[in-house]
């Protein structure tokens, strides 16, 4: 208990607190820029922490990282441009809300659910470190492979309730997995589908693919409509819209809580990939709807589709930190970089962090809490002005957002081919939406592809195909079947009569 309060006082010391505010300012700007994600900024800022104490360094780095996760949602909602890879799920319902003139409500909901998610994540971090060890150790490659596949199945199951819609969803998930195999294969070093281009040796970068497939189709549609993002929808009272979004968080608190738990769970699993947390939470939000009528708003601007991913996005940060601190096993790319900061500070993740350096560990918990509270309070003050952007004529907005998109994409490899990849995926995304092929399974398949391949390869190399009969794997397979079949069973009266 003493370490817990000491951790708070350490963060509130003027130097640590000032550095946290500085980090938050940087994180806010970075979160708004597509492409330059929290992980990249953490890497850029690592050299600046050499002369800081551990508490100051983590206040600075974690303050920046947690805020970047929150503000990424802002561009997702306002322009349909994911602020970073993890914010992509917020686009699906957040942007349609902005198009409907409810940007304020969507932003209020995203920020408040992010805050609740962050608090739940931090609380879990505070109490769970000694408890989660057996859970983490239970999950080997076969289980992690199945967990990733469940993530893809979750989002694929939302492609529609006809056989053809499901076929298209699964096909897109597989297409995403196939795209992730471009480049050098990790085990043997062989080059695959590189088309003789050195650019493809490292594979397709996530940022050009993501902003291309989500942002460009939306910008083209905005140009086609020839109006502002919100069109001719009445602006209403933006302040009350923001308040409505905040109230939505508490109206659907149980959903926000469950989605936060999904985020924490995915964060705890080392290597499960943060990208899956938002999508799984989104899928959970959709599947929690009681009937077809309740579900039909998803994808067209349902606030629950913003609350779920918003909560998971930030609760994941607390979950991510658990294996990083407790075992030195980073749960994501950003945590791997943070692990570098541990080394610079002379701290060794593991039992020492729970005994000798427990105060530092709790200072990290407090940083997550304080940084998120301040961010949300400050953001709420400017949300009204941000929401007004959706009423500016499309002709003004499009060139600026396009620049943002292409600068973000360019930062992937600093090559013109990044821009060409963005363009190609923009075209692909537009065609897919027009023809009714879902983009989310493709994106999630692509995000998780390398992990899925690695886990599958290790599982087969180590156990042959006997891993398929391991009890936990069987349980996860059953869960996957439930995820796929449940929507059909629940909606039976709706589709049985008129399906394919």
């Amino acid at each position, binding site marked *: 208990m003493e370490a817990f309060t000491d951790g708070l006082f350490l963060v509130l010391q003027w130097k640590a607190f000032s550095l946290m505010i500085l980090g938050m300012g940087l994180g806010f700007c970075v979160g708004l820029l597509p492409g330059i994600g929290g992980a990249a900024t953490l890497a850029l800022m690592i050299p600046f922490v050499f002369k800081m104490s551990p508490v100051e360094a983590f206040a600075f780095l974690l303050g920046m990282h947690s805020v970047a996760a929150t503000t990424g949602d802002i561009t997702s909602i306002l322009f349909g441009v994911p602020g970073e890879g993890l914010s992509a799920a917020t686009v699906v319902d957040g942007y349609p809300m902005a198009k409907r003139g409810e940007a304020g409500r969507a932003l209020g909901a995203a920020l408040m659910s992010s805050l609740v998610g962050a608090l739940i994540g931090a609380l879990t971090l505070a109490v769970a470190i000694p408890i989660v060890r057996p859970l983490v150790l239970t999950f080997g490659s076969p289980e992690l492979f199945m967990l990733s596949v469940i993530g893809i199945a979750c989002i694929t199951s939302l*492609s529609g309730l006809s056989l053809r819609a499901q*076929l298209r969803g699964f096909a897109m998930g597989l297409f995403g997995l196939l795209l992730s195999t471009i480049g050098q294969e990790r085990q043997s070093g062989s080059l695959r589908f590189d088309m003789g281009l050195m650019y493809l040796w490292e594979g397709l970068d996530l940022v050009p693919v993501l902003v291309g497939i989500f942002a460009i189709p939306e*910008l083209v549609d905005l*140009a086609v409509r020839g109006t502002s993002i919100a069109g001719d929808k009445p602006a209403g009272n933006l302040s009350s819209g923001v308040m409505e979004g905040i109230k939505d968080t508490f109206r659907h608190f149980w959903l926000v809580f469950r989605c936060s738990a999904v985020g924490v769970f995915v964060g705890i699993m080392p290597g499960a990939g943060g990208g899956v947390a938002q999508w799984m939470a989104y899928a959970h939000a959709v599947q929690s709807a009681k009937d077809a009528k309740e579900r039909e708003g998803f994808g067209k601007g349902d606030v629950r589709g913003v609350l779920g991913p918003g909560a998971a996005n930030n609760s994941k940060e607390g979950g991510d930190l658990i294996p990083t601190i407790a075992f030195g096993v980073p749960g994501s790319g950003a945590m791997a970089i943070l692990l570098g900061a541990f080394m610079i500070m002379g701290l060794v993740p593991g039992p020492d962090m729970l005994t000798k350096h427990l105060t530092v560990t709790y200072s990290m918990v407090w940083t997550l809490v304080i940084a998120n509270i301040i961010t949300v309070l400050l953001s709420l003050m400017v949300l009204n002005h941000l929401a007004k952007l959706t009423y500016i004529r499309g002709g003004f907005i499009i060139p600026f957002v396009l620049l943002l998109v292409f600068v973000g994409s360019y930062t992937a490899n600093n090559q013109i081919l990044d821009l060409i990849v963005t363009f190609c995926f923009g075209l692909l995304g537009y065609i897919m939406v027009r023809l009714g092929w*879902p983009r989310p399974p493709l994106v999630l398949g692509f995000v998780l592809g390398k992990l899925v391949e690695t886990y599958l390869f290790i599982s087969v190399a180590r156990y042959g195909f006997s891993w398929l009969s391991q009890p936990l794997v069987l349980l996860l397979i059953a869960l996957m079947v439930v995820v796929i079949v449940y929507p059909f069973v629940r*909606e039976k009266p709706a589709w049985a009569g008129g399906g394919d």
Partner: protein
Amino acid sequence: MHRRGNFLFSVFLILVAGYAALSASQWSFKAGFFPLVTSIPLLILVMLNLVLEFVGGTEKASGPAVEAEFTNDVPADVARRRVIETFSWIAGFIALVFLVGFPAAVPLFLFSYLAIQSRVGWLLSVSLTATTWGFFYFLFQRLLNLQFEAGVIPTWMGW
């Protein structure tokens, strides 16, 4: 139109999956295993979808799908023209980056788009372009120190 588009897109996916499966079958087990595991089911699913597209009649009761919906309020010919225009602007921007480099392409593109496509007044176009370019220069070039490739024209001219 929708049906023909679906047919063409399915054919595209079949060609991609077929090429991937064929290539992967010639690689070592380590390199080829995962592409085969993904491309063969992809091939089967898309072919099945294609068959259903032709023999299954009109798709009914697909239920709510989680995906964006684009506008259908604009006449088809106007919409088609605007789609082509926007993709042409994007392609033009990439061509500009290739020719003159990113830092010079930013103001050129912004000014042209605002003045020509959005029909914004010259004075406002110039001031918006100058402000944005200043922001771009200080944030990306000075503060974040991002390295931008030089365009072929400056390289050719020896600048």
